[in-house]
């Protein structure tokens, strides 16, 4: 992004406007397409404006972790595919991909939306639920889009039939037990303004961002500060208020 563009976006924001005419607390158009990938037990493709993220849920059978013998296993992974941005490179995940996956993992885990205790097959075997996030187009705000895709895919996922300790693909015994719909609203700060869902150009001029995971009952299940400028203590309350208010809108879309 050129200095000129950066200056233009900043000046617009200072005058209370956004580059695409949105209000500061307005998401871009959100689309959720469920079940696109039939090979996956659950899937969803989320678009936030031009940003696009696919999430797939695959179930495998494995041994439980020794410290949680009576629970299934959740593993969240993200790939910033080089298809999605000139800045992404093939190879092992970088720190941004790892951070994103770990935040989505915490939102799912800490909200207790997925009943892992219902994913035990036998004493030795449990289901491992893999949630893979695949970035298709990075046009800003990957984290909100990814979390939305993950929860939509989980709610779309079915439990495969198990025969003789093996999964029978494409035969199902029920839906994955998902009892809450946590969503992520990242509230961004530029100068003295707070905004949500930054577009790619806006993302480059942010001072800081508070990623907030919110559950159906307004409980906050995860927070992560991002960006290299500090926040004031009074900022945090304002940002949480925005996140809680907007979370309801996102949740309605997931259904």
């Amino acid at each position, binding site marked *: 992004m050129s200095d000129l563009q950066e200056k233009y976006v900043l000046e617009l924001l200072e005058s209370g406007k956004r580059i695409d005419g949105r209000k500061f607390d307005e998401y871009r158009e959100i689309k959720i397409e469920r079940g696109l990938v039939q090979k996956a037990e659950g899937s969803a493709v989320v678009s936030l404006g031009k940003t696009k993220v696919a999430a797939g849920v695959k179930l495998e059978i494995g041994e439980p972790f020794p410290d949680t013998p009576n629970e299934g296993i959740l593993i969240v992974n993200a790939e910033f595919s080089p298809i999605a941005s000139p800045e992404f490179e093939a190879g092992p995940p970088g720190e941004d991909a*790892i951070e994103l996956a770990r935040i989505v993992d915490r939102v799912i885990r800490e909200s207790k939306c997925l009943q892992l205790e219902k994913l035990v097959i036998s004493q030795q075997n449990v289901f491992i639920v893999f949630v893979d996030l695949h970035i298709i187009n990075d046009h800003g705000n990957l984290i909100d889009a990814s979390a939305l895709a993950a929860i939509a895919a989980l709610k779309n996922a079915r439990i495969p039939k198990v025969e003789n300790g093996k999964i029978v693909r494409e035969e199902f015994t029920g839906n994955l037990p998902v009892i809450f719909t946590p969503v992520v609203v990242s509230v961004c700060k530029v100068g003295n303004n707070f905004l949500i869902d930054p577009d790619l150009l806006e993302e480059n001029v942010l001072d800081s961002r508070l990623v907030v995971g919110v559950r159906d009952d307004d409980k906050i299940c995860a*927070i992560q500060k991002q960006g290299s400028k500090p926040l004031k203590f009074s900022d945090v309350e304002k940002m949480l208020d925005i996140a809680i208010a907007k979370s309801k809108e996102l949740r309605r879309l997931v259904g």
Partner: protein
Amino acid sequence: MKKDIKLLVEGKRLDGRLPDQLRPISMKVDVISRADGSAEVRLGNTIALASVYGPRALYPKFLQEEESGIVRVRYNMVPFSVDERKSPGPDRRSIELSKVMRLALEPAIFLEDFPKAAVDVFVDILQADGSTRVAGINAASLALACAGVPMRDLVSACSVGKIEGTLIVDLNGIEDNNSESDMAVAMMPGRDEITLLQMDGELNKDEVLRLLSLARENCKKIYELQKQAIREKYKSGE
């Protein structure tokens, strides 16, 4: 993960502390002679070592920033720091922590004072008993100051959380593993600004804000100890 352990007995924690009590803290600076600045911070049994190299020349050249320096942070847990040996080298957790620690320290540093150069911050956790990232930030901030890196303020950090409905400060390992919620906070106390904020668990907004103010209060205590550790060093005229 979560076990059936009573973490609070008659208002006291398993190690005898009150909910709002820090563990015994020790801080020493200049503990690694080869480093430009270094520090050791102990929070109870947690031991964090930090060393700083630089500002120094940054290669390859494409990593250089024309108008400012860069900070690189590596958080690392040594293999014998935990119950089950941790295989050496970065894992996903330490890569994420390295990133958030960098962002926690960066706002305190006058990066524009050393264009094209890098400051490298290495944090090794020798023993992990909870709150390792905040111990690491406290040590890193001391090491940066001792390396003479130009700074706006020290960065002070502490962990807070909720166990059995009670808000507590400075989680040890067992509390960390069994808490209902936990939060790590770093700030520049002299400027009253937050540079790191991570939380997970299940809290309503009011509890988040109460934890945040508990953290703010205790970061200020840590700040005083950090300043004291630096003064101690220069008083002795070494």
